[in-house]
């Protein structure tokens, strides 16, 4: 056979070509791009500011009556007439506990800083979930078949979707971080601008793992409705069984068990420790180790499944 037509595309070449296609599609659709920017803004504004948990513990909210009469036999020695406690003093006492309480439970002194970081995980989860949808569409419109009839590597098809989801998520995460700072995110005293690179690395790892999971789920699917149902079923449970909005330590045991294997918890934890909380090398290393293993395992599974299942 003549070799003049043989170019044998490298894995990189094919992946980049397909990723470029997805990114171009995304950038060419101004409304989707605008939504991508608006969505985190709305979430930050509504969620982050409305759920003002830090404020619950402030002076204004702990308003006990000036005199609290206590009756009964639990005070030793028993007194038939009961005792009166100075409520005002107690209120002030609790109020001074507030920030400490916040710090102990959430690790930061204001809830906005806590949840705006969680927002990044939220965006990563939602963006990667839809990477599965796009392969269903490619199949329906025949694009996938066309790509499969070319010598491009099957792994490149999956990997381009993963990369695309990662780029999008990182773009949105950047906007969130910038806005969070504008809206009053308080970085911790240990924060170093170099940590931002580590933040992106952590986001990329989770994107890699999560989009591989969702792509693997969508590999054989020809119905976007099925994919939509899967996404709807698991997005909120995954979100709430993690430390995104609320600390794991305050959850019942069985939710804690889920949250502890939920990779979203680890991304959130890593970013928090890098930005708003006290920096802790060993904890961050552990988060990264978990995220790396998660990403490696699921991207390998995804690529193996794509070899197996893309050709029927």
């Amino acid at each position, binding site marked *: 056979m003549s070799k003049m037509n043989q170019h044998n595309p490298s894995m990189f070449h094919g992946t980049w070509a397909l990723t470029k296609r997805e990114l171009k599609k995304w950038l060419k659709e101004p409304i989707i791009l605008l939504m991508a920017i608006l969505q985190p803004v709305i979430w930050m504004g509504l969620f982050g500011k409305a759920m003002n948990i830090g404020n619950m513990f402030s002076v204004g909210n702990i308003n006990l009556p000036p005199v609290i009469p206590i009756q009964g036999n639990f005070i030793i020695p028993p007194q038939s007439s009961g005792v009166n406690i100075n409520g005002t003093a107690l209120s002030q006492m609790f109020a001074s506990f507030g920030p400490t309480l916040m710090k102990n439970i959430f690790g930061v002194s204001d809830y906005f800083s806590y949840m705006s970081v969680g927002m990044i995980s939220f965006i990563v989860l939602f963006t990667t979930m839809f990477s599965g949808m796009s392969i269903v569409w490619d199949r*329906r419109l025949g694009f996938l078949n066309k790509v499969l*009839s070319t010598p491009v590597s099957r792994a490149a098809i999956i990997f381009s979707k993963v990369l695309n989801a990662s780029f999008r998520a990182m773009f949105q995460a950047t906007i969130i971080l910038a806005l969070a700072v504008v809206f009053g995110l308080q970085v911790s005293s240990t924060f170093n601008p170099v940590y931002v690179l580590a933040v992106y690395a952590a986001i990329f790892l989770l994107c890699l793992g999560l989009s591989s999971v969702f792509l693997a789920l969508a590999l054989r699917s020809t119905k976007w409705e099925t994919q939509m149902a899967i996404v709807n079923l698991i997005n909120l449970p995954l979100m709430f069984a993690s430390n995104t909005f609320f600390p794991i330590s305050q959850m019942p045991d069985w939710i804690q068990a889920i949250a502890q294997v939920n990779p979203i918890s680890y991304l959130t934890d890593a970013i928090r420790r890098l930005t708003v909380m006290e920096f802790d090398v060993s904890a961050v290393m552990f988060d990264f180790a978990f995220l790396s293993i998660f990403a490696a395992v699921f991207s390998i599974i995804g690529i193996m499944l794509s070899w197996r299942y893309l050709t029927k």
Partner: protein
Amino acid sequence: MSDDVIIAEGLTKVFNKHLMAVDHVNFGVKHGEIFGFLGPNGAGKTTTINMLITILKPTEGKASVLGFDIAKQSNEVRNVIGVVPQEYTADEDLTGWENVILCADLYGIPRNVANERASELLKLVELSDFKDKKVQTYSGGMRRRLELACGLVNRPKVLFLDEPTLGLDVQTRTATWEYIRKLKKEFGMTLFMTTHYLEEADALCDRIAIIDHGKIIVVGTPQDLKHSLGGDIITLSIKENADVSELISSIENVKEVKNEDGSYRIKAEYGEVTAPFVIETLRRKGYTVTKLSMTEPTLNEVYLEYTGKSMRDIEESREAFRAQRMTMMRARA
């Protein structure tokens, strides 16, 4: 057979363990010809093409393209073939140019070569003026031509066309045939196509295989297939009041003569050659032919003969259904 560009031996595809989509088909496609699979929707045409272009694994049997085994050497096959799928697969959000370049990238063609080929191919299919417009704005015929350009970007030796004019109006269809002929001439390829349009098979294909329920029923040139029905019908009348049935019967290629009140209905092979012969013979014997007409059998009659049903009846209802489905798919996108 061994020189054939595409060879299929007992090629079979069974879906879900019981749906026999392609049932032990054997055929060979010769170098440089246009080979067509003709049959109604659901006959197994697209399944066969999908196996040949390596996106479906055969359940049984084997096939090779340019000597490469479709199952074991799929990457080699993919490198030497071009595919023009049934659907419009070009990305609607990208421009025509970007689509062709994307296809080139999928074959790993270096950028400078890709640019050169893209502009050459877009010129060939007369889309140069629209190359920077989004595919969304293209008409059906333009999309088809863009698919052709994409399918040719790797200079394939074998081009697979799955229903190349599906859903196009008659004029656009004829124009598309012209493009296909032009491209074939330009690149000297072998073409394998499927169609359920009889006119298309007749106009475009060198040889056709009629396929129904996953089985190949007959293979041959459109001419041969039509002749196999027993030939053309020549109807003639003579001035003289005599029975010339015997005389006409003695002419070569004439198979059957019926005298219907002075008008003769002659079934003859190669009617276009036989008819002048009949006139000549009658004239020599002193008869004068006053009227003569000839009808050639169409592929529809061939189809009817071999499958026992008319292609057109099936075509109408399915066509409407398919058109509706395509519209819905576009709308949802």
